[in-house]
Structures are given as C-alpha cells and as structure tokens.
C-alpha cells in the first residue's frame, strides 16, 4: 500500500478513552435475575409458595396452583417430621419394634413414586413431579394426626386415648385421601379413575396404620 508508508502515529498525542463497552439499557431478562436481591426475599418467596400449598391442602378445591408450581420442599419437611415423630417408640428395645426412620422415609417416597408410575402407566396426563408434589403435600393431615396422637399419649395410654386416636387418625386419613383425589382425579382417563384412586387409598391407609399403632416405650 503506497500511501501507508507516510502514516505514523505522532508520539505526542495522548491516547485516551474508555476500554469498556458502554452498558446498554436494561434488557427484560435481567428483571428476573434473583442474584441481586437480598437472601431474605428469596427465602420468603419460597416459603410463601409452600405455605400457600399447605392452605390448599387444608381446603381442597380444584385449583391448579398445587399442580402448576410444584415443589418438593413441603413433602420433604412433612416426611422428615413424620418419621421423627414415629421414633421414640419401641425402637430401642431388642425385639421387633416400630418402623425405623429410614423405613418410614422409604415407604413414603417409594410409595409415592410407585403410585405416580401406576397412574402414568394407566394413561394419566399428570407429570411425574407434580404427582409426587400432590401426594407429599397431602400427607399433611396425617402429620397433624401424629402430633395429636403424641399429645394424647402423653396424657395416658388407655382405652379412651385409643378411641380418641382412632377417631382422629381415621378422620385425617379420610381427609388426605379426599384431598389427593380431588387434585389428581381430573388428569386420569375416565374409565380408570377407581384404578388410580385405590393405590392412593392403600398408601394413606398404611401410613395411618403406622401412626395408630405407635406406642411409646
């Protein structure tokens, strides 16, 4: 290039300027970024979602909030607290005792997985984790029943307390089954609803049985 031989940068002109690219206007994606918000906001948002689902279980209506934004925090908390409360039974004795922590955990999660697989194999349209979420949250009435049972057992372990516990556990079992059926029934093919509801009934029956037969040492 013939003309370039003459071009040279004069040494006395200072070179200055900004190296960084100027930041443009806020793009819409950045509004959903949660990295900058305080930790309290993040936790409170999740806690509010979990709390809202608990309220939905208490008054089961056909709302899709439980299904749409599924989460497994609630079921985990319920499962752990139920398993903890079922401890302190005859677990320390050498003979056959009550269920261990791991047994309760496995029964609840494995049972929920099996029921979900069953409903999907029968042609249900619900997704895997949505179903786990519903089944886990509907354990809440039974956790309340466990709490009541432990309180009643503190007062005594006679026939009267047994009858009270039987009534409370029975009522909560019915509530759990009805609540989960209310949420899950719509996604099943119409000829097979009973086939899907029966395993749910069996699942909550087994959990209720574990709660009812709990005897403190």
């Amino acid at each position, binding site marked *: 290039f013939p003309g370039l031989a003459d071009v040279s940068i004069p040494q006395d002109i200072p070179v200055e300027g900004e190296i960084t690219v100027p930041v443009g206007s806020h793009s819409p994606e950045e509004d959903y970024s949660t990295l900058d918000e305080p930790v309290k906001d993040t936790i409170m948002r999740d806690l509010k979602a979990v709390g809202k689902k608990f309220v939905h279980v208490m008054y089961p209506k056909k709302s899709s909030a439980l299904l749409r934004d599924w989460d497994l925090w609630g079921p985990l908390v319920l499962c752990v607290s139920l398993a903890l409360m079922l401890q302190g*039974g005859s677990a320390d004795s050498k003979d056959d005792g009550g269920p261990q922590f791991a047994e309760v955990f496995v029964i609840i999660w494995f049972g929920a997985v099996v029921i979900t697989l069953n409903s999907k194999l029968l042609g249900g349209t619900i997704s895997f984790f949505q179903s786990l979420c519903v089944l886990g949250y509907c354990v809440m009435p039974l956790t309340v029943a466990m709490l009541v049972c432990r309180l009643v057992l503190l007062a005594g372990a006679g026939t009267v307390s047994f009858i009270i516990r039987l009534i409370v556990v029975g009522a909560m079992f019915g509530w759990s089954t009805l609540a989960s059926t209310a949420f899950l029934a719509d996604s099943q093919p119409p000829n*097979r609803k009973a086939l899907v509801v029966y395993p749910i009934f*069996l699942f909550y029956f087994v959990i209720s049985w574990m709660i009812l037969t709990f005897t403190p040492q």
Partner: protein
Amino acid sequence: MATADDLKFQEFDDAANLLAANPDATTISIDEPVEIPKNQHSRLQEPGREEDDELLGTDDSDKTELLAGQKKSAPFWTFEYYQTFFDVDTYQVLDRIKGSVFPVPGKNFVRLYIRSNPDLYGPFWICATLVFTIAVSGNLSNFFIHLGKPTYHYVPEFRKVSIAATTIYAYAWLVPLALWGFLMWRNSKVMNIVSYSFLEIVCVYGYSLFIYIPTAVLWIIPQKVVRWVLVVFSLCLSGSVLVMTFWPAVRDDNRRIAVATVATILLLHALLAVGCLAYFFDAPELDIPAPIIPVHNST
C-alpha cells in the same frame, strides 16, 4: 348368523376361487404380520365353534399370538411398551377378580377373562394389598389374643411387613417363571394345543391370590377351627382356578407328569397359605380357664 352349512368343515379351495366367490373377503399374506380385524365376515372364521374351543383355545390361539405380537411392538426401552401392560379399565379388573373368586366349572380363566390382554395392574396391587392385609391382620390378631396379659407389651412388628412382601412377591413372580419354563420345555417335547405366555401365567397367579385378602382379614378370629376351615375353603377356590387353567396345558402330556405338575401347583399354593397363617398369626389360646398356680406349700 351361522347356518348349518357354515358349521360344516369346508374344503379350502384355491385362493383365486374363494376370492372370486366372495370378493369382499379379507385376504392375508403370510410374509408379514397382519392384524386380523375382529369383525371380519369372511367364511374362514366360524363363530359357532368358539364355545367348544373356549376351554382349549384352539380357535383363537393363533389369533392371540398374532395379536399379542402386534400389540407389544414398541421397543422395550420405551415407556409405551410398559403402558400396554396396563391397558385395562376398571370394569375389566373387577370382572377378572370376580372370575377368580367364583370359578365357573369348565371355563378357563385365561381364555374367558384375559383374552390376550394380560395386565400387570391386578397382580401387582393384589400382592401389595395382600402383604399389608396379612401384616395388619396378624398384628391385630396377636393383639387381641394377648390382650389383658400383664406381661405382654404390644409392638407393631414392622419387620414382618418386609418378610411378607418378599415372600408374596417371590411367589407371584418366581413360581410363574418356573411354571412357564417347565411348560415351554414340555411343549418342545409334546405338541400341546394350549400354551400360555409368561404374562398370562403371572396374571392368573396374581388374580388367584385375591381370595386370600378377605381370608386374611377373617383370620383375626382367634379360633383354630375357623382358621383352618378358611384355609381349606380359600385353597379350594383359588386352587380350582389354577387347576382349570393349567390342566388343558398338560393333559396331553405323559399322564404322570401332568398329574405331578398340577399337584405341585396346588401344593405350593397350599404352602403359601399355611406358611402365612403359621408365621404371622400366633396360635390362639385354648379355651381353658386361667391356669391355676400349683400350690407348693402342700408338702
């Protein structure tokens, strides 16, 4: 409507002649598997023969083989393959349960109810219900038997649930596997008319266990006579379902092997019932007054 002419055996003419006589007939080519439509009206199907062959299943055993192959054509690693085993409606499951509890003499459970649509829903959930029923009833029965004794402390005995589950699921899956293998082996030696697929055998075994569920609930009654009467009664019912299913499959074989096979099936079934009764349910106390403590100070 089947006329008298239709019931007589018809010589199979040349395919061209047949087609010329009945241009609407469905033709089948041998080189590829073809699903036979259920409502074909050609002369090749004889609806009048179905009742005679229901026990043997000769009429539709070919059809069921073709249909079964056609149905489960999804590869086994996809979810749809397993969905074909759950292709039952509520009324079908209830019908199958009724068929296992009230066996009709002369009717084959597999041909009558399953009809090439074996499902895994029934066997799986009946076994699960049986496991929990036995565990719960055993617990309740022991509680009532030992009620009032000061030395007895009630424990839920949760370990027994896992033992019950292992036993019952092993019975419901391993015995059909062994039986299926045995029937396949005999089939290669003796030309049997009837052969069952593995899933059909699992289905029969699963549904035949249903009668044990109310039996286990009634075993809570702490009377020995009542319990043994229940064992015999339920064994007769479910055993008859099994016998009527498997007798046609072995009766063309050597007479001694056939009888031995059926006897083994019944024996294993009885062993399951008696074993569950013995292990999960404590023996009820005899009806005697409280034992009188021998007086030592008489000497």
